[in-house]
């Protein structure tokens, strides 16, 4: 966090940053850079990273599937299709000035809608089928991607670029309002984590086994879905699509600290926050005064890392 506050395109020493934080900056612009740009941005990157990694850990536990991540069941795609629709038609449909507010709300609504649809489909005789959930997610994913493709076709040059950049993710537009809106979406699920942890551990043994151990499996699944929806919806709505955090961070934590969810969930959140704050420092300094989309950085870090992980554990897959 200190690095993220101290490093940026505008050269400020750690001392100057401290002065700005304590309201003793020599120059108003320095104070503004720290208070209006870097601090909300750092907090937002942290919250988004925590939310995505927590959601990833939840889905992996819930689906007992190591490659589950928010994009897999179509949640990010649902947010993307609504955002793309707003980028293309928002200027016609909405009064001027509403679009900046409508976009995060729309993305949030899009991801929630996908989760509701998918979990409704997966509900058979009052029980949620995990396999059905995944497959329905994949179908919704394809549908939403086609919708986004159609919107890209309808868009003009500028709108198309806006859509592309949104799908690459950024925390560059961070404001205190967004941080305040996002905070409960991430903090609430995080606070519930200890409560999920033991149930998810039990679910690893199998649903029936968990039920025999006295867990109310259905309720856990539904609440975990809700927590997941809140965290992912919040994160996607303010930052666009940032891949790989939800997939890689829980794996890293699991490899180092074991698979117990009481450890995995909170540490994933911490790890996700750290990774995204660091990735953002890279994103905004490497081509300064311009900026790289953060989704590129996480994918460039995440891709090779994940491959290395697979190579190391290749044996287990053969067995």
């Amino acid at each position, binding site marked *: 966090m200190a690095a993220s506050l101290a490093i*940026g395109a505008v*050269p400020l020493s750690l001392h100057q940053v401290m002065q700005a934080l304590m309201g003793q900056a020599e120059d108003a612009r320095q104070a503004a850079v720290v208070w209006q740009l870097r601090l909300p941005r750092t907090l937002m990157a942290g919250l988004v990273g925590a939310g995505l990694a927590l959601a990833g850990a939840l889905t992996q536990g819930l689906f007992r599937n190591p490659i589950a991540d928010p994009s897999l069941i179509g949640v990010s795609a649902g947010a993307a299709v609504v955002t793309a629709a707003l980028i293309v038609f928002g200027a016609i449909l909405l009064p001027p000035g509403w679009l*900046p507010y409508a976009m995060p709300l729309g993305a949030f609504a899009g991801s929630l809608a996908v989760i509701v649809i998918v979990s409704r489909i997966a509900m058979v005789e009052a029980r949620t089928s995990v396999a059905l959930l995944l497959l329905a997610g994949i179908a919704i994913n394809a549908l939403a991607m086609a919708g986004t493709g159609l919107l890209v076709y309808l868009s003009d*040059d*500028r709108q198309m670029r806006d859509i592309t*950049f949104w799908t690459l993710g950024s925390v560059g537009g961070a404001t205190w309002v967004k941080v305040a809106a996002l905070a409960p979406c991430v903090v609430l699920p995080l606070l519930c984590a200890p409560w999920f942890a033991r149930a998810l551990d039990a679910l690893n043994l199998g649903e029936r086994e968990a039920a025999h151990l006295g867990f109310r499996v259905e309720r856990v699944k539904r609440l975990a879905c809700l927590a997941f929806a809140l965290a992912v919806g919040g994160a996607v709505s303010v930052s666009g699509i940032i891949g790989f955090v939800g997939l890689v961070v829980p794996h890293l934590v699991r490899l180092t600290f074991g698979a117990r969810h009481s450890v995995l969930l909170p540490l994933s959140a911490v790890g996700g926050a750290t990774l995204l704050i660091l990735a953002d420092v890279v994103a905004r300094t490497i081509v300064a*005064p*311009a*900026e790289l989309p953060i989704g590129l950085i996480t994918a460039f870090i995440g891709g090779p890392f994940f491959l290395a992980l697979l190579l190391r554990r290749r044996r287990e897959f053969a067995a």
Partner: protein
Amino acid sequence: MLRRRDLLTAALGLAALPRGLRAASLPDRLVVAGGALTEIVVALGGAGRLVGVDTTSLYPAKVVEPLPRIGYIRTLSAEGILSLNPSFLLASDQAGPPAVIDQLRAVKLPLALVEETFAADHVPAKVLKVAEALGQDAAGKALAETIAADLASVRAAVSGLAKPSVLFVLSNTGDRLMAAGQATAAETMIGLAGARNAIQGYTSYKPLSAEAALAADPDILVFPDHVVTALGGRAAIARLPQVSVTRAAAAGRIVSMDSLYLLGLGPRTAHAAHDFATALHPGARLPALPARAWTVA
């Protein structure tokens, strides 16, 4: 004597009035987001004040190449811009994302957003807006009037000519061609040059199918220079399945131009329209436009 002094005071008073609309002091460290705006700033003699431009600012190359780049016009970064220690940001209303513009307002960077449209007559208006923001109203008025006059001469020169139909290809992805529809800079320039857009019925640029090209059956095909190179020359273009069926390809009427010059909608627009019209009406003798300082860089 007294009267003259009164007039002088009144004139000074008037001159002082619009100050409030401008940057508090003359911006000596200027960041510009928007290719046409950068051209206007340079045409107004502000090249020395530029400290950063966006990636759509490509002309004049001599001026912009050494400058730091603040990224693509739609993905600006607030802190990146501030790191250049600017005293003023001049940006197209297309600049964004909106959140970054809000952030820059929040840190009280003086900035002006200039509306950009596809109308040719909007170019002089844009010049006036830029000049006002830079506190150079007199120079701006002169530049705007000259451009308006040059545009009027081009219009007059092509007014009596028959209007050929033109299919404008903006870019290619492999051999997929993107053709200009309505609400594009290409259509504006086609109209200015005394021709009509063969493609009707959609806005922006869309992939061209062989059938759509045949239905439009243009008299002339227009390609940017770099696309002609990428596709392997005019002869290769005439053989492309999407366009080979058209009258234009059969007659070998393929025109190519520098797309930045042709589509910039900046101070060089009238001269670009003139050159374009000359290429589209090879039989006609169009009177040349006077060379201007901003068209010879």
